[in-house]
């Protein structure tokens, strides 16, 4: 009997439940709970008597289709969720559970409304590849490394991201440049000569080509040869002497991938410590790109191996790092070869027959370089075969010119300023052309469009080839017409998606562009072709595979540059007088590239580590570890770390470092090089980390006109802000986190006082290294920094450590912001209030991991935000 009753009850529930769901589907009803909440907690203030403007919550309707009511509900959702409303001063605050229930119902209503509203179009709109994605895609497709992004206009930002559909317009300039970029890419992928021989060559600095600098008698104090080894005793001019001329002529003739082995050692350092050198990509006698800083080990020959592409005419520079400082620190003179005191008269005169030659003191020894290349995996290379098909063969261009029209660019190709010998071009064996052309094009289109082509598509491109062949053009020209059309067609340039659920090829593209910033690779493509990718476990496995690959670095780099605005690292140059530490040579304004590079390096390594080890959002803001090398540790006043490589370091218990907020990269991009502004730093933090952005400043609100003559502090200037009612509403939120960060200067050093060049105390003992010598600092000690601040709600805190602690105590808040940013970047469209329902699901699923970053990425990918259009 008992059993039966129970059964009846269950039956009843089963019968009634569908009705309940039906009822809940009507948004007006699902808003009943939130409406009750608003009436009870909000409408007393936001009514006709008290409300600012027309934000009347006493009149709020439950119709989400009404634009105004939707806007107001959005405001309610944002403010209640952030805990900002109802205000803390209100005596009867709602219970947490009550607010949560109201919010959940509201989010669900928003979501349902959105699903109806979006229909098949989904959240995301068709978007073109941005210029980084464009370049990555062509590099992968054709197996080339020729730069292409420089041809394309810079992409506009939306919410800080460069891959947002709404900002990626397409203009005639784009079309013109896509044509030029396609030509450049096709030329780079097409074989012009017989297979170049892969050779290993040894380049010694004893060669006459290399002697122009170190061979000169008057430069021998800086560096000189012992046998085949080049010894650096001092810094030399930045472009010479180790600009490897011999290699330049090799790459001019045979650009391609090369493996470079650089053997170095350090000699005669004071305590046997190691020294640091840098390696640069160079061309035309100038540095082009830093390849890295490395350690020269004391009395131990060590090899640094670099494998990378070299464009025509590119070579390497090996340069010592801060050798003048090393030399002075170990008691030697930079004007004399040894430790003698007095500089003999006329010693450095150009007519001195015996100019100084350094022979003792610390030195970096660079041995002859060993370079192997061009490295070829296949011949013809992968891209060439993709373009012209397996069946095509390479023959002399002159041979082809006998039967078809071959343009000058193929018949007499030029690379750099040299004409290439014995040029070749493609030809198909007779009788095979039609099917071979179709076959080749089908494969190319399939990869370029990231989906199988239709028969009609292949036909239309094949017709282009045939038409040109029939006019007597050679095969390469005919083929290229179709290739160019493929690469300029909308299916290549746009990420096309059909809703509501993504098909497996669309999903593969989304996943791949998200995590690798490029088109799906072969493995992922196979799963897409098989149609299994959408299965949750397959999707999860593939996500893991992509995240474990070195190519995931592209995500780290691009996402951080946009989310945290690290793209602005080079936007400002620190003031030389105020922040001389940032420079390697002050006289020519050359920044300390090791330091500059380590700033961003720290943030990337830190973030990558959080993702690899699934560390949580609390660690993101207040970890007890970070990544340091010798130079960055020096910058942070943390002793005992040697060497150029960034490595994981546990921080001392009382350190102000740890977590993103106090990393020098962040502190630099939120300052202007000369001053810091709590407003800019506060806004950055709220917008990017906390996720409670403040509305834009009113039209024509200016900044504070900086007056660093010492009359007023920034705090006093901002205090006025807070006392003006129209400013205060927002500045009460923006300024406090900014104040907590005031104890960091524009280059991210911790500070107790401001530096000024105007009025302050002279710092007699403070010395700084100016590149060639130690000198007195040019700045003065200004006023004390006050990093006191308060948390929302009014609690006073002493400094940034307390601020970070308070943030870390709100992991859900941080995770919500992070999920939104990740989903925005992953889908190319902003996450708005209608998506909060889905965001909640991600949060729920990642909560058990302590909101681990890796888990969050997985859960975003599993979520409908990602799997549906």
């Amino acid at each position, binding site marked *: 009997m008992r059993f039966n009753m129970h059964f009846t009850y269950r039956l009843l529930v089963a019968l009634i439940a569908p009705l309940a769901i039906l009822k809940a589907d009507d948004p007006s009803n699902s808003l009943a709970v939130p409406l009750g909440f608003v009436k009870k907690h909000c409408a007393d203030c936001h009514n006709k008597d008290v409300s600012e403007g027309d934000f009347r919550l006493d009149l709020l309707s439950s119709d989400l289709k009404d634009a105004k009511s939707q806007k107001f509900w959005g405001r309610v959702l944002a403010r209640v969720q952030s805990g900002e409303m109802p205000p803390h001063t209100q005596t009867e605050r709602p219970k947490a559970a009550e607010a949560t229930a109201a919010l959940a119902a509201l989010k669900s209503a928003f979501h349902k409304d959105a699903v109806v509203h979006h229909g098949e179009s989904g959240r995301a709109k068709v978007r073109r590849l941005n210029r980084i994605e464009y370049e990555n895609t062509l590099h992968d497709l054709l197996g080339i490394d020729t730069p292409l992004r420089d041809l394309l206009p810079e992409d506009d930002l939306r919410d800080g991201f460069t891959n947002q559909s709404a900002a990626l317009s397409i203009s005639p300039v784009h079309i013109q440049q896509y044509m030029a970029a396609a030509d450049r890419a096709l030329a780079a992928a097409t074989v012009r000569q017989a297979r170049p021989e892969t050779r290993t060559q040894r380049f010694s600095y004893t060669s006459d080509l290399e002697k122009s600098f170190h061979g000169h008698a008057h430069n021998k104090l800086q560096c000189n040869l012992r046998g085949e080894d080049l010894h650096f005793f001092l810094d030399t001019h930045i472009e010479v002497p180790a600009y490897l001329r011999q290699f330049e002529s090799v790459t001019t003739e045979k650009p391609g991938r090369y493996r470079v082995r650089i053997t170095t050692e350090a000699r005669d350092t004071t305590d046997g410590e190691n020294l640091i050198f840098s390696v640069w990509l160079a061309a035309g006698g100038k540095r082009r790109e830093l390849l890295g800083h490395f350690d020269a080990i004391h009395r131990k020959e060590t090899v640094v191996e670099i494998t990378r592409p070299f464009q025509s005419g590119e070579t390497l520079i090996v340069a010592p790092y801060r050798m003048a400082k090393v030399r002075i620190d170990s008691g030697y003179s930079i004007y004399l070869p040894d430790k003698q005191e007095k500089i003999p008269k006329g010693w450095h005169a150009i007519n001195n027959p015996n100019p100084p030659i350094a022979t003792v003191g610390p030195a970096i020894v660079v041995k002859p370089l060993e370079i192997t290349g061009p490295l070829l995996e296949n011949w013809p290379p992968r891209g060439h075969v993709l373009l012209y098909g397996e069946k095509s063969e390479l023959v002399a261009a002159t041979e082809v010119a006998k039967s078809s029209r071959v343009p000058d660019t193929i018949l007499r190709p030029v690379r750099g300023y040299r004409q290439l010998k014995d040029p070749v071009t493609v030809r198909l064996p007779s009788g095979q052309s039609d099917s071979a052309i179709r076959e080749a094009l089908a494969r190319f289109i399939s990869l370029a469009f990231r989906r199988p082509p239709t028969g009609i598509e292949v036909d239309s491109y094949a017709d282009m080839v045939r038409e040109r062949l029939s006019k007597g053009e050679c095969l390469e020209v005919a083929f290229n017409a179709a290739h160019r059309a493929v690469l300029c067609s*909308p299916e290549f340039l746009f990420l*096309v998606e059909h809703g509501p659920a993504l098909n497996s090829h669309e999903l593969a593209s989304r996943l791949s562009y998200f995590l690798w910033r490029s088109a799906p690779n072969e493995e992922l493509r196979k799963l897409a072709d098989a149609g299994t990718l959408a299965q949750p476990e397959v999707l999860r496995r593939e996500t893991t595979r992509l995240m474990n690959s070195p190519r995931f670095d592209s995500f780290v780099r691009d996402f951080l540059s946009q989310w945290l605005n690290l793209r602005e690292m080079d936007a400002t140059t620190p003031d030389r007088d105020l922040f001389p530490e940032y420079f390697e040579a002050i006289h020519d304004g050359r920044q300390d590239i090791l330091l500059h590079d380590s700033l961003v390096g720290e943030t990337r390594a830190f973030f990558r580590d959080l993702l690899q080890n699934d560390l949580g959002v609390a660690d993101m803001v207040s970890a007890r570890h970070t990544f340091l090398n010798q130079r960055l540790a020096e910058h942070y006043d943390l002793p005992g770390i040697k060497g150029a490589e960034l490595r994981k370091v546990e921080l001392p218990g009382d350190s102000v470092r740890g977590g993103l907020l106090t990393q020098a990269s962040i502190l630099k991009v939120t300052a202007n090089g000369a001053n810091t502004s709590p407003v800019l730093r506060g806004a950055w933090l709220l917008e990017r980390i906390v996720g409670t952005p403040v509305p834009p400043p009113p039209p024509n*609100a200016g900044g504070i006109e900086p007056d660093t003559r010492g009359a007023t502090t920034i705090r006093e200037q901002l205090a006025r802000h807070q006392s003006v009612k129209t400013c205060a509403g927002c500045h009460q939120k923006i300024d406090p986190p900014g104040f907590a960060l005031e104890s960091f200067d524009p280059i991210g050093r911790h500070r107790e006082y401001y530096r000024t060049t105007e009025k302050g105390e002279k710092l007699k003992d403070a010395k700084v290294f100016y590149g060639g010598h130690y000198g007195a600092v040019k700045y003065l000690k200004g006023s004390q920094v006050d990093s006191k601040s308060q948390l929302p709600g009014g609690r006073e805190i002493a400094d940034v450590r307390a601020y970070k602690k308070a943030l870390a105590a709100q992991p859900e808040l941080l995770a919500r912001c992070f999920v939104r940013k990740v989903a925005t970047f992953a889908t190319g469209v902003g996450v708005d209030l209608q998506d909060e329902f889905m965001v909640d699901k991600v949060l729920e699923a990642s909560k058990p991991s302590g909101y681990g970053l890796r888990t969050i990425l997985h859960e975003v990918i599993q979520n409908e935000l990602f799997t549906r259009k």
Partner: protein
Amino acid sequence: MKTLPRRLFLRNAGVAIALPLLDSMVTPPVCGAAPSEPPKRMVCIGVPFGFDPTAFVPVTTGKDYALPSHLNHLAAYRNDFTLISGLSHPNTGGGGHKAEAVMLTGAPYPDYSHNLKNTISVDQAFAMRFRGETRYESFALTTQGQSLSVTANGVSIPAMDRPSAVFKKLFLAATPAEMDADLRRIDEGRSMLDFVRDRAKSLNQTISSADRQRVEEYFESVRDVERQLKMTREWVNRPKPKAIGSEPRDISDNQQQKAKFQLMIDMIHLALVTDSTRAISLMTFGMHHDLSHHGKEPKKLAACRQVEVELIQSFGGLLQKLKSGNEGGKTLLDSTMVLLTSNLRDGNSHWTYNLPTILAGGGFQHGQHLTFNRPYLDEVKQELNAAPGSKFNPEKRIPLMGQDQQPLCNLYTSMLRKGGVEIERFSTATGSLEGLV
């Protein structure tokens, strides 16, 4: 029929160089029509950090205004330019440096998220009017990377930063084989564009209506390039003018702002005298950011002003060059509107109103200081008169658009109208600029 002089002489570092014909000189006027006026040109020069107001803004107005210290360096051209104060773009308050992107467009730049939807720049709006009349529709130039020119749908047009490349575009003649290859390339391009345009059409049938807008934009862009190629084709067979002087050596050291600016000025001048293009934009002088944040510290302020003086002097050099050319009894400056402006009042304040603005040439009546914000002049005056050593920092007064501020686009509207573009209002303009005739 009036005969135009067949040669122009310009004084370039004391050397007189023979100039080729201007197109307008060889185009015979239509029978019975009045002698053709020289065509209008537009040069827009933008600088990112403004000018120190106490050195740049005259405190008196009208015809007899007293030249402030910076403008003393332009005293010789006093009657060839108008200084305008009290102009800005509405709704660019949060832009700061980012508002560089809208310097010539006036698009709103309201917040820190930088969600900019840019619009066409004034030089491009002007250039469209001359499409096909000159070899190049416009030149976007820069000495520092950024470009000021923006297409109709808000895309920044990459700017040329190498004077040698500009020189080659102007003068480097193609061999017959190259011309043949050029024509072939153009025809291939046109046929390819024709093809992908159809692809866009068929793609549009498979995607949702909300997605179509972007593909439409692609479609329109392709059509536009097709039209451009058609016009380019006609220029391929016309010989380029004979080179004036020799190819310049590019300066790679970014610190040499003045030398880089002057080299570009030479190229602008060559482009105009050869009538190779009529619309030019140039972004320049962006390397003294640290000095621009001088915080009113005297030493830094002096250094910053010195950089600004170099800029103004070089600008004067451009006016001089344009004035010395003679075209149909008029100077080249008479037909060329030369604008100098910035997105910031000055780097220290970062304020995006009271933008420094000079308009020279172009057939306007010049020689005056037009102001739309008198209180601003008083502020500058007070600061100028403050006792040395006293730390006078005037109260910040936010000007109200329409009251003590006019849209910079009103000036752009006047310029476009003068240039023969029939336009009611450009961008955020409310009309043409009052007081500018």
